[in-house]
């Protein structure tokens, strides 16, 4: 298995973790070929998660934008987001390796909930690292994880968001590497995580491909996905990479403005760097210290991005775009009022990009609705009261 995407990715970790990553790669390469593994995962995705998720033609939004807009309804998955596609895959790998304890990091809490869910299902103890700031703004997910039996460790260091939660999870893994499996929630971290997470998430793009062909008889002109670490984007994009007629549009978080200090758009504003075990585009200051990201959406509030997306950017395969906090917030209400769907703040960035791009008129466009908005009600209500 290749450990890099062009110059990106790799395994920037101390030797202590290296052998654990080698064993993980070996186990994953072996298990993904096994028919019984595919059957078990396929069965869980169908009967437990509720896949395939619908590809819904949003007629009122289409009318308003002049595009033919299809929404990939990952919000209808069990636990309310795409994250469960990955955690079920990884927990089966963990079980096959005989690991006794699961750890995870979480930003918005969706990956934490999806990990806690998979652990409850498999009867494994679960520890989730979550930044204090994220615990406050995504409190429903904290209760959900506790209800599912997970232990939440508040991270009080540094940014108190996803970046430091990830650092703490890596530290836990370094200390307990022999019996612990680390379920990473995005296409980030050292090899083989970016590849493995992308593989488990690419069910999104594979279904979309099949569904759009049966609905309109051809491939879409564009697919849009929000990008934090990039798991919903890589899951949607991967099966379309070779189809050069399909534009792959990334919606990063411009926060309070792309050129302000308060943004989370490493593909647009970062430089190649090393964080959390991999090389990728990274927000950093003039001294090489990692900058604090900012986004209204906890799931996008991360200074790095997946190495494969970094590589696709350099190849010119991505159409890079972004949406500010305000635009995402507005797009959230727009979808709610126009189609009766409350999206999470993360996919609201993708909707905001759809809304402002005039070049998508008369085009067939798929937007990945990676999760539902229930977890963001607190933030949304607070915002509404300021309007």
């Amino acid at each position, binding site marked *: 298995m290749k450990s890099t995407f062009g110059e990106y990715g790799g*395994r920037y*970790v101390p*030797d202590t973790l290296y052998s654990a990553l080698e064993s993980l790669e070996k186990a994953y390469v072996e298990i993904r070929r096994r028919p019984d593994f595919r059957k078990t995962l396929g069965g869980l995705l169908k009967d437990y998660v509720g896949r395939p998720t619908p590809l819904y033609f949003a007629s009122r939004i289409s009318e308003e934008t002049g595009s033919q807009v299809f929404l990939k309804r990952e919000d209808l998955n069990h636990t309310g987001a795409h994250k469960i596609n990955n955690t079920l895959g990884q927990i089966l790998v963990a079980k096959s390796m005989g690991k006794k304890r699961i750890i995870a990091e979480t930003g918005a809490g969706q990956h934490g909930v999806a990990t806690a869910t998979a652990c409850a299902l498999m009867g494994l103890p679960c520890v989730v690292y979550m930044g204090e700031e994220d615990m406050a703004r995504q409190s429903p997910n904290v209760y959900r994880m506790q209800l599912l039996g997970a232990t939440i460790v508040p991270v009080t260091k540094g940014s108190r968001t996803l970046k430091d939660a990830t650092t703490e999870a890596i530290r836990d893994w370094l200390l307990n590497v022999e019996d612990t499996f680390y379920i990473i929630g995005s296409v980030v971290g050292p090899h083989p995580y970016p590849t493995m997470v992308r593989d488990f998430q690419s069910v999104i793009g594979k279904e979309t491909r099949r569904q759009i062909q049966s609905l309109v008889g051809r491939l879409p002109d564009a697919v849009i996905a929000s990008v934090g670490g990039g798991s919903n984007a890589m899951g949607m994009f991967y099966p379309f990479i070779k189809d050069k007629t399909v534009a792959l549009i990334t919606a990063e978080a411009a926060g309070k403005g792309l050129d302000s200090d308060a943004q989370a758009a490493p593909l647009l504003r970062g430089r190649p760097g090393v964080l959390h*075990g991999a090389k990728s585009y990274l927000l950093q200051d003039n001294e090489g210290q990692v900058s604090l990201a900012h986004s209204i959406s906890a799931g996008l509030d991360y200074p790095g991005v997946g190495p494969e997306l970094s590589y696709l950017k350099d190849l010119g395969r991505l159409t890079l775009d972004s949406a500010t906090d305000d635009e995402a917030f507005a797009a959230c209400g727009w979808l709610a009022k126009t189609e009766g769907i409350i999206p999470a703040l993360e996919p609201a960035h993708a909707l905001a990009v759809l809304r402002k791009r005039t070049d998508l008129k008369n085009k067939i466009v798929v937007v990945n609705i990676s999760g539902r908005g229930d977890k963001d009600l607190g933030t949304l209500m607070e915002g509404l009261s300021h309007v």
Partner: protein
Amino acid sequence: MSNGIQSDSAKPDPNSAAGANFHKNGIQRAKPFDKNKLKNVFRKKNVFIPYLTFGDPTIETSLAMMQAAVDAGADILEIGIPFSDPIADGPVIQASHQRALAQTVKPTLEKLFSVLPKTTFLGQVPVILMLSANLVLHHGIDRFFADAAMAGVSAAVIPDLSIEDAAPYILAAKAHGVPIVFLVSTLCTDVRLKKILRHADGFVYLISSKGLTGTRDSLDMTDISDMVSRIKAIKKIPLAVGFGVKTRAQADALWQVADGVIVGSYLVGAVVDVPDPTATAFDIVAEFSAVSRTLIEN
């Protein structure tokens, strides 16, 4: 208090590396690095390598602590460059990096390269740097090793750089004569150990326990001596053990099997634990010096 920096009016000491190179225009320049400096240290037994963070609690005080460590008997000085997200370090060193980065005068790599040649300790012991891969990458890989050589640095430890991703780093390290010291843990497989040792230069940094810097209460001596034998069977190279050493007894036990002992978190922690909140930089250095001495003196 000596802050480790020679004043401009001080007469250059002909025996010190910093003093040996006076340019014609009077600007003091570091002597391009002496290749044998590191090798020579390992001719003696019981090599003591304290680790200190550059800029914690301030640049001045940290340099004075480094001088104190050398005066107390350090054989090699390991200087950590603070990073926002050091994944291999435990809570004590992470906190130390955070304190250093919170200073108004930032303890940057540029800053270190400019002050290091003026220090007294550079002329006394080999200085090695420990820093995260991103800081090297950001500085420019080739430029980092060039600047390190100019500043008189004897080696670089990049804890999150794996041998598999190290090709451009090794190339630059060789070109400028500043070796990369690779970390090896007791969990390393034979195949990988051979790969690492093929490129190992200067010495090998053996991680004494699985996990993070400074978080273990006890050392697994059996694992360590097994690992030392495995390494020595493959390559004749000096070995220093680090991560988790906090008593003289532990250091003594490690010196029985390894050439050097690295002490980081315990010393860095001792600085923070200075009981009096009004302690001056001088008190901190005195306290630090006392702690260092307990580790090396009989």
